[in-house]
């Protein structure tokens, strides 16, 4: 199993009034009675919006194999109640960070609780159950695209739609256009959480053997992602048991995306997670 040296927190708030919160989010990871991580995230995103943060090196790396379903909890440090809908915690070792592997650790979806320090509003913390990292033969029924758009002095966000496509050989088995979700899509310095069904389930091994994942932009409003991950989920709906790393780009690199060739790439083949 992986030695987790870098950790990420992603969540999607429920699209309900006051679901967002400016309270600091607290994440704890406990292994056999010892808190190996106690970290605060200044999420501060609104109703129906997504958050993705992390990427810095942990003071105390930990072995993902030591986690149980009781190990990971997320809480809130204020009384501005928070209503997350989906939460994913993942990480990697330094070597995996470099090589395009992300290791899912814990996930919940379809949450219903409101978290707050105010005991009349909801629980202080909730558990995030362990998810397995799957393997190259895990059948993928759904994709999760997590992306954070670059903050920069120029306009790195875009109003153009983007598109994710999955090919097996010459066969297009998934195409999802992302244009106008309930989130603030692909805005500068913001994060997005997009789930998409895979009408034809597939495996990472198939992708590695004869497939591609292609990310495209469908307009000329240039876009500069900063961080991008694609995960495969083993459940067609609800909470998955296995979450498979498909693409891990914790550092996107210098290239912009645009259908205007003078501004960037119209499409890129995303590197598939090895192994």
């Amino acid at each position: 199993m992986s030695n987790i040296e870098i950790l990420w927190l992603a969540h999607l708030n429920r699209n309900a009034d006051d679901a967002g919160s400016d309270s600091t989010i607290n994440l704890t990871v406990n292994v056999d009675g010892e808190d190996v991580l106690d970290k605060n995230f200044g999420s501060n995103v609104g109703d129906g919006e997504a958050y993705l943060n992390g990427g810095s090196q942990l003071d105390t790396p930990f072995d993902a194999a030591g986690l149980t379903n009781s190990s990971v909890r997320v809480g809130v440090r204020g009384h501005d109640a928070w209503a997350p809908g989906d939460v994913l915690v993942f990480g990697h070792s330094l070597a995996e960070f470099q090589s395009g592997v992300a290791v899912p650790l814990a996930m919940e979806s379809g949450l219903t609780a409101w978290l707050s320090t105010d005991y009349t509003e909801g629980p202080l913390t909730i558990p995030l159950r362990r998810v397995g990292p799957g393997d190259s033969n895990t059948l993928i029924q759904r994709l999760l695209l997590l992306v954070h758009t670059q903050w920069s002095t120029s306009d790195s966000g875009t109003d153009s739609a983007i598109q994710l496509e999955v090919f097996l050989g010459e066969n297009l088995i998934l195409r999802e256009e992302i244009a106008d979700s309930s989130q603030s899509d692909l805005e500068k310095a913001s994060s997005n959480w997009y789930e998409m069904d895979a009408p034809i389930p597939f495996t990472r091994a198939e992708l590695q053997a004869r497939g591609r994942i292609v990310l495209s932009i469908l307009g000329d409003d240039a876009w500069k992602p900063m961080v991008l991950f694609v995960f495969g989920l083993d459940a067609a709906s609800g909470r998955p048991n296995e979450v498979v790393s498909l693409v891990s780009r914790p550092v996107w690199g210098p290239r912009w995306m645009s259908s205007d060739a003078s501004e960037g790439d119209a499409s890129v083949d995303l590197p598939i997670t090895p192994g």
Partner: protein
Amino acid sequence: MAAIDDVWLAALSKNEDDAGSRNRFNLTINIDGADVYGHDFILGWNLPGQGSAGLRDGQAGLEEGAAPTAPFDAAALTNSSVRLGLRGDDAWAPKHALVIGRAQPDFIPGRFLALAMETDIVGWLSADSGEGRLTMPLRRVGAGGADMVVRRVLMLVYTDRGDEIDTESDIRLQVVTSGQIVLDRKVTHDLNQVRAYWEFLSVDTPFTRADVASKGSIRLGILGTDAWLPKTLFLFGLDTEEGRPNQVVTLSAIPKWELGMLSTDPSEGAASVVLPISN
């Protein structure tokens, strides 16, 4: 297997400036990813005119929480199962904390057992990230058996609200096995209304609960005429002389005291009573 249908929290604040807190104390118990218990404890009360509820510096709390929505299996708890948190930014510095559960009656009457415990806790709890952690783990302690060697005793006692039920008299706990006094300790502070006390008592000679049950006794007495009526008393035997125990055996558990007033004045109560031994 012990199906827990009742949960108590005991805690002692450090005796230093601002160690107490008026915030509620949040306890969660998780088994395999499901929160089987969650409750916000008050722990510290005051009489009218004494200020708001909460634990003061150096003060102990002992409180029965709401019942779990369904009994849970104590054997399924792990070291990651139990967490204690604070519901606000009035930072709290706990010194010791103990979670107690009552097992549903099966072939024997319902019995109390220690579920999780930390001692000599370092750090503070607060919702304010600049002040401390939001929550902390309380590691599992094993429920010691009748043959566990007791090297220290923890006495938790609570006195309720009422006329003439608190005392300024000293009290005394004595444990005898086979005619030998193995523990004889005097507790010298006042036992006030709506106050809990957490006392570690050293033993003169290590003993087992089986020794006490078969040919011994535990006796609680009072050393003065200021009558006292406790409401709740727990006695636990710890397997370590100091620091955090690994095993905790219940010696006596009296959630609701029915042994009458204690006083050296026979017109007010008994000078001492024999405590029931847990099974």
